[in-house]
């Protein structure tokens, strides 16, 4: 389940719904990672663009990977503006086993950061400024420039 929302996430409602949906499914461990916008460098908030077709295929590959370990992944992300101290991202793992869950949440969140087709902008003075310095080139970038 990949859920995209316009603006900030209602974190308690999402965490509760996921918990209750999986309660009968005999997973011993549920680990959500919640990402919240920090007040820093004078930003008013962050803004996100998402390219959904490739995000969906990235997510389906992770569903398969989790499934192979008897686990399940879910995700919620904001599109557009999210103000400081609001949340823009929840990634969660359900697994029968503790070790699988702890290892999977780490890999899943890190791969999300490195690969998911989402672009972040600082909101300063009501303008969107691409967060270039904090961004990561997707593996294989530069193909058309012959520099890879």
């Amino acid at each position, binding site marked *: 389940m990949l859920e995209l929302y316009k603006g900030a996430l209602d974190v308690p409602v999402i965490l509760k719904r996921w918990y209750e949906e999986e309660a009968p499914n005999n997973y011993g461990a549920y680990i959500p990672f919640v*990402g919240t916008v920090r007040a820093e460098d004078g930003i008013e908030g962050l803004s*996100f*663009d*998402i*390219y959904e*077709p*490739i995000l969906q*295929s990235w997510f389906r590959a992770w569903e398969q990977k989790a499934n192979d370990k008897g686990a399940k992944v879910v995700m919620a*992300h904001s599109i557009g503006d999210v103000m400081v101290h609001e949340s*823009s*991202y929840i990634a969660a793992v359900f697994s029968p086993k503790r070790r699988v869950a702890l290892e999977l949440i780490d890999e899943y*969140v890190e791969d*999300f*950061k*490195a*690969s*998911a*087709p*989402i*672009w*972040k*902008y600082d909101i300063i003075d009501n303008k969107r400024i*691409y*967060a*270039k310095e*904090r*961004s*990561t*080139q*997707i*593996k*294989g*970038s*530069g*193909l*058309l*420039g*012959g*520099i890879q």
Partner: protein
Amino acid sequence: MVRVEFLGPIQKEPLNIEANTLSDVAKILSQDEELKEWIATSAVAVNDMLVSSLDIPLKDGDKISLLPPVCGG
């Protein structure tokens, strides 16, 4: 004719160009000075699949996307 789309912060309208391979696309895009930095740092998808080779044959109607550096979360 293939369509080239520029995602995220690359503020550029889609282009429709004649190209038989990604090498052709690379040649055409590299003539645009504004795109130089984006080309050097962007990943490439053909019909929403990320690709890692310039030899991909293209057919009429294919969609090529440029994905600049990402930062979700």
